[in-house]
């Protein structure tokens, strides 16, 4: 805001304001992810006073840059489509009361549902690069979330199939950077481990046709 009122280059010449994405300014929308002093994080919670000066801002490197700090994160949303990250319901008629659920189960799912699809976990993952199609931690953890949901579970097998396909779990190198970069402290590596087990079991089941 303040910069936009009078944008200047380092040597004091007038320039255009920097283009960057943001909406909520409180870690809800996920649009402001960038590298701040080399660290992938949400810009809206980067308090200037607590940063080394001068602050260096760079766009995320794992997504195509639109302009300046703004990147196109649509590849991540495409992955969410591939793993069917939704609960399949027919909203055209009243389905009656939803399923019962243990509060402890709900509380764990809540942690996973905090994902803001910011892309930081992809940014820090060495396996997400030009030569691989790895989808990264966020969509995998969403499978863990939806396969936990009593109704979401109906698509569990299809989601696991997607994780076993190209760009899926096999390409995870277990670097564990993702869990450290997540602004919402989602237990990403736990989700990945859980999905490894689930896909293995699923593979066996498919193999033996039961």
């Amino acid at each position, binding site marked *: 805001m303040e910069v936009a009122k009078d944008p200047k280059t380092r040597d004091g010449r007038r320039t255009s304001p920097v283009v960057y994405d943001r909406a*909520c300014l409180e870690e809800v929308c996920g649009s402001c992810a960038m590298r701040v002093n080399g660290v992938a994080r949400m810009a809206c919670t980067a308090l200037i006073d607590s940063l080394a000066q001068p602050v260096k801002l760079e766009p995320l490197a794992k997504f195509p840059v639109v302009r300046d700090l703004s990147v196109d994160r649509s590849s991540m949303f495409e992955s969410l489509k591939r793993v069917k990250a939704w609960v399949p319901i027919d909203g055209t008629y009243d389905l009656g009361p939803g399923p019962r659920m243990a509060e402890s189960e709900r509380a764990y799912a809540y942690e996973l549902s905090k994902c803001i699809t910011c892309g930081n976990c992809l940014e820090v993952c060495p396996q997400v690069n030009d030569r691989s199609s790895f989808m990264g931690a966020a969509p995998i953890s969403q499978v863990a979330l939806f396969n936990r949901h009593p109704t979401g579970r109906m698509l569990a097998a299809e989601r696991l199939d997607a994780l076993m396909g190209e760009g899926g779990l096999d390409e995870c190198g277990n670097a564990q950077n993702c869990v450290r970069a997540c602004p919402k402290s989602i237990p990403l590596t736990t989700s990945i481990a859980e999905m490894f087990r689930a896909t293995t079991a699923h593979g066996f089941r498919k193999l033996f046709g039961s």
Partner: protein
Amino acid sequence: MGVMFNRTPEGLLDFRRFGGTKFHRTAFAGATTGQQLLYALDEQVRRFEVEGLVHKHEMWEFLGLVRDSDGNCRGIVALDCVSMRIEAFPAMSVMLATGGPGIVFGRSTNSVINTGTAASAAYQEGARYANGEFIQVHPTSIPASDKLRLMSESARGEGGRVWVPRARGDKRAPKSIPESERWYFLEEKYPAYGNLVPRDIATREIFQVCLMGYGVGGKREVYLDLTHIPRKELDIKLGGILEIYEKFVGEDPREVPMKVFPGMHYSMGGLWVDYAADPRHGTLDETSPRNQATNVPGLYAAGEVDYLYHGANRLGANSLVACLYAGKIGGPAMVRDGRDRGARLPPGDGAFAGAKKKWEMEFARLARLSGPENPHVIAEEMGDWMTDNVTVIRHDGKLAETDAKLQELAERWDRIGLSDRSSFANREISFVNQLRNMLVLARVMTRGAGRAPARGVPRRALQGARPREGGHGRKRASARRRELPQNDDRRAHRGWPADHLCGGEHVADSAAPAEVLRDRASQRLTGKLPPACPERSASTSAARTLRPPPLTGRSTSCPTDRARTSSRS
């Protein structure tokens, strides 16, 4: 849809209270229910995309309507915010679901995309805008220079207590102030509701306590205290919002009481929309194409951008219900309307080329702006004036000054110099266009706030300020609308008469407003003036039968009296 709401030990839905409610009636998902609902809707849209039922145009911005020679809305013109291409989109019907206008106030709890630009554009093209001044100021937000982050009402719903030190300017750390020296002013004044008084009352009380110099450290802040609740319980029920506080303030709200102050939060007003009653039962005719229709044929509005459902003051959690409901009845209405009005205009129709050309020329003009003014400076001044004068306290004189200021800003807008001349992903040019729309909307709100009748009785605000849930709000709105002559000119005052405010206090007498207020507040607080009557006027039976006050002359009766009378009628 997949939102996992908190459960009881039996695995059933758990409910919590919100301001203005006495019962645990609201299902919740941790402390970020709205966010969870948003994600679920987003997921479902993605599902529809995969099924080929929805085509999203992301990073496109609505600029204006396409209207045919009969005035029907036949599509929209939009800007691709990346390539900066302008395109006209044909449609059978159009629905605006573009959210509230928080950014008109500079800083608010809203996202920065909530500029009200689309609603303003529609208004300038002839759509009615109703109750623009009905702005809800949330009692508890975290003050900061970039944004007022919301401290959700769930913090009070889960037992958060609002207090200030009894001694003005007390410099001690909150934890070292003994109970007896804390003033729990909401609990003291409103024993039945305690800290969960409706938003308008909480806002006004906090505001007044601070005006009287009781704010924490003399500043415009009060404590919102959760420290008496076990950490574990707080983490389960309020984790999300407490994390936000921690991240932005750097203090742990589980250990140290939070510091909060009211902030602009929600617009009850918006684009006027209709609905149709079923003559047989008087209930909503769910099959009518009139539902959620604006006065422009073919144009619909739903969500915070519409004016329906909340009267002058929204209750916690009701916005999302209203959004969902408006979508549920508005969607089918659009389809029916499209069918009724016949085939869509062929894309080759001149109306599209004309509208597209108009906006291309307009943006070419904006691109050439090279005056001395900076749009961000104008926006900041607009926000400051609106926050100071059109939120909690609305003083006639100040409203007039604000109106004059807004006109000055609009003139300065003409002398803006565009600081980005790129023809790719140019956010400045789109901001400049939005700013013009915001200035128009700001005037609508300001003029609306000043509309008759003069409100010398501050507690006028109480009347009708506690609507029942969705359905009844709708009924009242329409009843009022029918009592009003329909005016077709595009003035600010449309919809129903403002017989109540929204967390705001309207001061009609221009002499020494601050003193008057402070006096009034201290009299009330020391018991010389009767406390406002939340219990009685909050009773739903009274709220349902409320009538607007006479449109002319000054009304001096206390709303308590009116509520009492009307509940008898």
